[in-house]
């Protein structure tokens, strides 16, 4: 009798334990409802961006909060590493938890806009006049502007003033001068010039100023003009004026090599200036050298824009549009441009900006003629960018002649 009783108690305990093990699973499945407000007063806006490193993080926090105060909302901001942003956006899109304000790198805007995940700014009466064409082009999809940004960046040629002075060389303006200067500046462990030809979009981005300035176009990579530009890079590496390591250097690596004194010149962007300021290197910058004297340098336009995702909450979306407009107003443009060494997107501010930050003159000039990467190809850009960096790698490793490299890459 006693034994039966004990075993039934045991069984009851076991069944309770099994139930307890299942319950939490059921509960978690019910969690995570939506938190959309139903019209009425908008009190908060959620913001997602990738300015996750200092000093940019704090700087943007201040700017975002100021605009929050101006439009009368509190800001709930989330930052994440740049490489994870798109994955995060897709994930949140499928779970209907997109932020009210979303920052995107400009070449990604069309990809996300075509999904219907963003709302056109014209819907809220946002005024987009006065902005540089390139940035509007990048942020547009099928004739509608989806994002605005206060600042843009581009590429230029940085040089080590001391090394050039020592060799008695003027900063190069043309490809010929670049080759000659790089050869002359190469000695011992030091290379004349460095750039990034890495197998990522960074490599493609760095090649664009050379390709575009020479009159080549991303719609036809097999043109002789594209091959000539590639030939320049191949010559620089084959002659030893640039290291073979460019194949594996990101732009940050190129900057590190420049700071370490291993490079006399480098192709890089103004976002590296804060790091250069911290180093002992005396540097200056000019526009990317052009194919022949008098040619107009055409560089790619970089930078992020702020968009209003389609969250379904119209009151919040309208508020978010107001907020996006505020981020890109004149005052913010000047403040952010000055603090982060980027160029204002309103062309009428550029002169004032250069007066305030003279070291940015070359980049500011470059921005006037800069082109967006997605302006022509739109959502086909990623595929072409892959062909560009693959072609560069094929040519620099000697697996293909510059004339055939892009064609070979395109077959991939």
């Amino acid at each position, binding site marked *: 009798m006693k034994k039966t009783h004990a075993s039934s108690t045991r*069984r009851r305990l*076991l*069944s309770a334990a*099994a*139930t307890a*093990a*299942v319950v939490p*699973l059921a509960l978690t499945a019910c969690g995570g409802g939506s938190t959309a407000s139903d019209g009425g007063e908008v009190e908060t806006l959620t913001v997602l961006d990738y300015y996750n490193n200092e000093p940019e993080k704090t700087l943007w926090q201040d700017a975002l909060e100021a605009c929050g105060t101006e439009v009368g909302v509190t800001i709930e901001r989330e930052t994440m590493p740049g490489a994870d942003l*798109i*994955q995060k956006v*897709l*994930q949140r*899109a*499928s779970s209907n938890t997109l932020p009210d304000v979303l920052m995107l790198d400009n070449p990604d805007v069309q*990809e*996300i806009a*075509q*999904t*219907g*995940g963003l709302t056109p700014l014209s819907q809220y009466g946002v005024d987009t006049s006065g902005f540089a064409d390139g940035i509007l082009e990048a942020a547009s999809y099928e004739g509608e502007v989806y994002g605005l940004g206060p600042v843009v960046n581009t590429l230029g040629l940085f040089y080590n003033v001391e090394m050039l002075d020592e060799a008695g060389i003027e900063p190069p303006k043309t490809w010929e001068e670049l080759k000659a200067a790089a050869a002359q500046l190469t000695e011992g*462990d030091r*290379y004349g010039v460095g750039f990034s030809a*890495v*197998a*990522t979009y960074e490599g493609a981005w760095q090649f664009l100023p050379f390709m575009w300035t020479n009159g080549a176009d991303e719609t036809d990579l097999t043109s002789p003009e594209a091959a000539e530009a590639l030939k320049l890079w191949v010559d620089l590496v084959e002659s030893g004026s640039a*290291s*073979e*390591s460019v*194949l*594996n250097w990101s732009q940050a690596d190129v900057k590190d090599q420049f700071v*370490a004194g*291993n490079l006399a010149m480098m192709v890089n962007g103004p976002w590296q200036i804060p790091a250069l300021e911290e180093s002992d290197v005396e540097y200056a910058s000019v526009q990317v050298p052009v194919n022949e004297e008098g040619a107009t340098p055409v560089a790619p336009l970089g930078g992020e824009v702020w968009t209003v995702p389609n969250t379904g909450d119209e009151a919040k979306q309208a508020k978010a549009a107001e907020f996006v407009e505020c981020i890109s107003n004149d005052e913010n443009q000047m403040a952010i441009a000055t603090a982060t060494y980027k160029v204002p997107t309103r062309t009428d501010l550029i002169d004032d900006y250069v007066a305030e930050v003279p070291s940015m003159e070359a980049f500011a000039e470059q921005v006037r003629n800069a082109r967006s990467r997605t302006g022509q190809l739109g959502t086909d850009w*990623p*595929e072409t960018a*892959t062909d560009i960096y*693959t072609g560069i*790698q*094929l040519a*620099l*490793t000697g*697996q293909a002649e510059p004339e055939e490299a892009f064609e070979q890459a395109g*077959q*991939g």
Partner: protein
Amino acid sequence: MSVIQEHINGVSPPAAAGGTEPPARRKRLRRDDVVKFMFIVPAAIYVVLFFGYPVVKNIVMGFQDYTTQTFFTGEAPWVGLTNYVTAMSSQLFVPALWNTAVFTFGSIAGQFAIGLALAVFFHRKFPLSNFLRAILLLPWLLPLIVASATWRSIMDLDGGVLNRALGAVGLDAIPWLTNPDYALLAVILVNIWVGIPFNVTILYGGLQEIPEEQYEAAALDGATGWKAFWHITLPNLKGVISVVLVLGVVYTLKVIDIILGLTNGGPANATQTIAIRSYQSSFVDFEFGVGAAFSNVLILISLVFALVYLRTTRRPAN
């Protein structure tokens, strides 16, 4: 699963008794079954959610035009075998398959040989042997992205420690990561370094199980050193070795972080593997369907080795 099944059958009373039993007892038995079932439920839910769902989803995605748009609209049109055709007709498919094979077998051979040698070495007790064995685990504890960034600077062409060391002994610098002829080798070397702790740990565990008497008896018959290794150590380790090798193959097939960190699949696609193709199709080109097709190919290859693993670890039935 089969163990649980057996257990349930074993405990349950014979089914034939059901009809003749008093109703009260039958009821209690049913409750018994429910309780038993409840114990399986958590494991079953876990397996279905975290193993079943992703695999099924991945197979389904392979037949869909799954793009960034799908995440917003939920629409992914069926495209039949188009993704597989795209994946396999790409010029990179065969080289990537070949690289996957070379990478996997190269890594496993290196990891296993060095792992076994170190395991045998540490099997002898000597001062600090435990401490040194613990140090060996270090590569395992380091996040792979940190490890690959460190190796990238070690293998740098001009300033890397490795080439400086080669230079110091009068050898030429080797373009580890920038020459298509060396890049795959460099990536394999780093992956060997990553895999050694796993091999040492499991093989060392296997060595501990071998009875000391066998060595003593063999020593009396004059079998020591290599002879003892061939005739005692290896035969006794057979089971452990097959587990290490098969798991190693499955782990190595899917490596992407080390390759992405070191070369990004370059230079000139020299280190493209099927896993890298899958990653890049999905997260660089945003063609998730094609990415799924690549990874299904990988799953299929893994499955073959997983079956081998199941066969080798299955206890002989009576």
